[in-house]
């Protein structure tokens, strides 16, 4: 069946099977492979994307449920050249190694900082505890997110990545 939604600011119309997850739709139909699939049961958070501003596990959502929604993936939170302040902070703090969980971390952190640019370390840990990373031990990720808060404060939240 056809589904129409917006991805990273562009309107798309895709023909999908009703059972296709949003994650698979983004990856294999729209070729937005920055969104990763790590567990397909909603635990690891690698597939996190923004749906109407909220961080959502795209492996637990069907593509057809995205009808009319605004979806943003890690590609949509990136610039053509260089890094956003959030991404630069991840790089500076070495908050990634293999990079597989990273898009989910970026989207999750972006949703958090957009809403709560003054969040403290405990809040960052609480929110990120829904995303598994096997490489870093998380400490550098928490530091990176905390360090990126200033960029979101400056822009008054919103799409400040």
């Amino acid at each position, binding site marked *: 069946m056809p589904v129409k939604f917006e991805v990273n600011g562009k309107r798309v119309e895709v023909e999908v099977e009703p059972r296709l997850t949003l994650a698979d739709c983004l990856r294999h139909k729209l070729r937005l492979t920055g969104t990763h699939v790590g567990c397909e049961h909603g635990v690891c958070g690698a597939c996190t994307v923004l749906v109407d501003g909220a961080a959502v596990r795209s492996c637990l959502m069907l593509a057809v449920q995205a009808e009319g929604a605004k979806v943003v993936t890690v590609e949509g939170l990136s610039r053509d050249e260089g890094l956003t302040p959030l991404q630069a902070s991840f790089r500076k703090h070495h908050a990634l190694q293999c990079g597989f969980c990273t898009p989910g971390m970026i989207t999750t952190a972006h949703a958090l900082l957009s809403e709560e640019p003054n969040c403290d370390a405990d809040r960052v840990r609480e929110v990120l505890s829904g995303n598994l990373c096997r490489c870093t031990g*998380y400490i*550098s990720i928490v530091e990176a997110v905390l360090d990126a808060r200033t960029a979101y404060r400056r822009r008054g939240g919103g799409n400040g990545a």
Partner: protein
Amino acid sequence: MSTTAPKRASNLFVGSPIERLEDLRFLTGRGQYVDDLAVENMLHAAILRSSVAHGRILSIDSSAARARRGVHAVITAADIGTVPTIPLRHDPTPAIRRFEQPVIADGKVRYVGEPIAVVIAESAALAEDALEAIAVDIEALRVVADREFARKDDIILFETVGTNVPDTITAVRGKADDAAFNSAPYRRREHFSVQRHAAVPMEPRGLLAEWDDANARITVRGACKVPFTNRRALAQMMNLPEASVRMVEYDVGGGFGARGEFYPEDFLIPFAARLLGRPVKWTEDRRENLTALNHARDMECDLEIACARDGALIALRAHACTDIGAYVRTNGATAARNIAQVLAGPYRIPHVRVDVSLVITNKTPVGTYRGPGRFESDFCRERLFDMAAADLGVDRVEFRRRNLIREADMPYPLPKVQVLDIESECDSGDYQITLDRCLAEFKWAERAKLNGKLIDGRHHGIAVGCYLEGGGTGPRENVRLAVEADGSISLFVGSSSVGQGVETVFAQIAADALEVPMERINRVLHGSTDYVAQGFGSFSSRSIVMGGNAIGDAAQKLRTLIREAAAKRLQCQASDIVIDRGMAVGPAPARAAIALKEFAGLCADGTFASAKRTYSYGAHAAYVAVDAKTGHVELIDYVAVEDVGRIVNPLTLHGQCIGAVVQGLGGAFLEHFIYDENGQLLTGSFADYLMPTASDFPQIRAVALEDKPSPLNPMGAKGAGEGGIIPVGGVVANAVAAALGSLGVEPRDLPLSPPRLWQMIQAARATCAAR
């Protein structure tokens, strides 16, 4: 061979916290992992896996599945003919080789998750749908669900072999016999165990195989860790010349020892691609990943030490047993070998004998996982040391200090692994320095006042432990450096990337060795079999030691070529030419400079060979608070100090250490593959198999030193990827024991999950009350 490390002053990049090159693509969603690939005409595979742990396959009827819409083939053992087994990559004793895994269940199934059939269809969904249409009739056999039952040999997994014990690996130093123990003033013997858990990288495995019929050539995308070794194995199994097999490495979402070994799918997917003449892609889902990818650890150990009254160790002996699951996989004996070799750790113990039996059960086969055998060994040894120190009234720190190998003892031999004839020795180090630094960073003296105290309703405890990390495994590594048309340098290397940052650290090393700016190293091409004639991959903390020193060799040769070419042009001696900031500069007074692009086309091959391993070392300390009412342990502070010989990138090294510590904490407190008596995995999802999250262990500190370079390579480098995990289980278990000393709780088994620790506390209280 040079034994002095180059002076830091001449280096710009090695030793600096350079931000990673890889990050630019990973952070923007432009990484390319194997499941991101799509090619024309591609078909998809799904694998039917056994739901029975032990049974005889009576029949497989795949006709209904074959008839399904979109299904192109169903492959079973019968379609393959003579089913090949997967060759051992490490330690292939004849005894162990009898237990190699067939690439698809051949008459019998021996673990839940074993591949029985492969469906190839138009889409992954259609392939998965068709799995349920395959009718497999399996006569269930009695399941061998644990070590103890396996060793009785009542039920045999491999009837033709006649035993469930493939081999026993023994390592010896001195003479740890009854005489040594009977004459000792003090001895203690205890039984320990470490649970089955695993590497569990975040990216599930995947492969994309393409058969080129015109040239009879197979390309396999998604290789990593040891692509060259796997090329050899696949070529043999597919009856192709090695040159007709191409392995291509993409971004890899974590390895930790498990990913990149040769698994059944590494044959099945290329086989399907050749059979159908179409590209075939397979992506593992997490459920199958947890029963298909190598498990690890799962050992028990009966350990005894003998010492003098002052704590000076005299002898150590042990019988350990590792449950290696249903088959011996590529490196299934490595953990056992390591246990034999390193159970004695970084300590001077004159007499050592360790026997490690490998036992077959109806579970997922095991392989190496970061610090294989070392994590397990350290837990057992360090626990027993704390018990012995308490018995003897010797301070725990003093006990270790007294027994650590001294710098004057170097090189100090590890126990010799007998059947495999492996000899190794600690290459260099001052183990007291890392211990002292760890205690200082940790503020041991201050915190010792809290040890064993009940504060605000929780029991507080501290502990410290020492370890060795073997790295730099040979035999060699190969590198090619080439000057490109734009004057940039391409670096080709046989080392592999599993997400650890080799592109960055290799670019740092190459830039320094060539004395060019780092951005001149525009491509670091690793892993794939296209790049160098023979590569050896990334395992056993070898990439910087082997690949890094090979870069040094290639750079020296390329510099010579550039100097010779420049000298010819400037009509001077090659020795007059200086390479500076990416230019070849002639002698004074003219100092004519030639840009590197003028030398486009020059290239040099370099190699580094070593038969000796490096040994990094260090000490970790932990401070915990235990809630006796719930069994919950809070890790209040954790300090890791290591000496890695030579630090290339402090940022990535720090990341390796912290990440490894947290993985170790997962193994110590959380992660557990639990099987029932029918061989069914009860913790086969991320809801049940618990890994550390961002809120679990927020306080970990790591310090890296480079006081004692390795004498075995020009860089002075030692391995650095695994040290962080090795001592964790022992250190935190000792901290928990120290916290609960008043209750008499002595952890002997991991994991220390809240329910298990709570039960131990209850049992200790009951014992106390009974007295």
